[in-house]
C-alpha cells in the first residue's frame, strides 16, 4: 500500500480505531495520513471536506450508520475503496452493504493479517 494513502477510519469505538490504525501503520501508512471519525455523521462531513483514497467504516454507529456513510460517499464518489469492518455478519447485511456500494467487507473479530490482506488488495503499492 502506498505510504501516502489518505485513509478515513470511522468507528464509534476508540479501541477499534486504534486497532485499525495499528494495522494501517503496519502496512506503512503514517498517522498523519489517517483521519478518525467517531460516528457516521462525522465521517460524512470529513469526506465532504477532505480527499481520501480509502475509507474504513464500522456499521453500527451513532447519528448515521456505516451503511448511510457508504451511500453518502457513493453519491459523490463512485471509485474510492470503502471497506466495511463490522460485527454484522448476516447475508442480508452483507447484501445491503454491497447494494450501497461497499468495496470489501471484514467481519469482526478479525486477525490483523485479515485487514492487511484487504488493504494490500484494495490499494496495491
Amino acid at each position, binding site marked *: 500500500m502506498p505510504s501516502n494513502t489518505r485513509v478515513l477510519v470511522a468507528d*464509534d*469505538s*476508540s*479501541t*477499534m480505531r*486504534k*486497532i485499525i490504525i*495499528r494495522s494501517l501503520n503496519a502496512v506503512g501508512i503514517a498517522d498523519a495520513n489517517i483521519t478518525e471519525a467517531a460516528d457516521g455523521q462525522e465521517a460524512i462531513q470529513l469526506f465532504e471536506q477532505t480527499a481520501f483514497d480509502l475509507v474504513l467504516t464500522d456499521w*453500527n454507529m*451513532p447519528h448515521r450508520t456505516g451503511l448511510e456513510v457508504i451511500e453518502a460517499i457513493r453519491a459523490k464518489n463512485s471509485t474510492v475503496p470503502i471497506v466495511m469492518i*463490522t*460485527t*454484522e*455478519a*448476516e*447475508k*442480508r447485511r452483507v447484501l445491503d452493504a454491497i447494494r450501497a456500494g461497499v468495496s470489501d467487507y471484514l*467481519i*469482526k*473479530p*478479525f*486477525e490483523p493479517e485479515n485487514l492487511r490482506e484487504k488493504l494490500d488488495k484494495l490499494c496495491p503499492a
Partner: protein
Amino acid sequence: MKAEYINPFIAAIVDVFAKMLGCSLKRGDPYLKDRAQPTYEISGIIGLSGKAIGTVVLSLEREVALQATSTLLNVRYKTIDADVIDSIGELTNMIAGSAKAQLEQFEMNMSLPNVISGKNHVIQFPSDATSICIPFDSPWGAVCLEVSLVEKHAAKGFPAKTGTPAASPLSNPQEVLA
C-alpha cells in the same frame, strides 16, 4: 428460552477472546439466573431486537477487563478508564454480533453497547425473560456471559416490570451444551 439459542453465544465468546485477545477460555457449568445476583465488576450490555428480543451481558472481573484492554491496545492499564470501558463495550459488541449472525432467522438488530463499572452492581433482566449465565475461567480471572433471548411471539408484555420469573423451559441448564 430454547437451549439451541445459547450455543452461538458460547461459540462467539470463545472465538472473540481467541482472535482478539489470544486468550483461551475454560467453560464452567451454565446455570439459570432467576434472581438479581451481583455480577463481576465490569459489565458490557447489548440489547437485541427483531423476531426475538434479548439481552447479552459480558461480565468481567476487574483484572480480566484490564488485561483484555492491555492486550487490545498494547498498553498496560492499571485502572478502569475510558479505554477500558470502550474496549469492553467493543468486545461485547463482537460477541453479540457474532452470535446474532448464527441466529439469522430472527433478523435481529443490536443496540449500541453500554458498559457498567462498579463493585456489586446488579443487572436486572425483564421478569419474564429467563437469563442463562455461562461462567468461564480465563488466565486473567473470571468471565461470565449472561444471555436472555425470547422469541417475539413468546415475549408477551416484554419487558415486564414485576412478577415472578416464568418457569423456564430449560429445566436443566446443562442441556445447553453438548
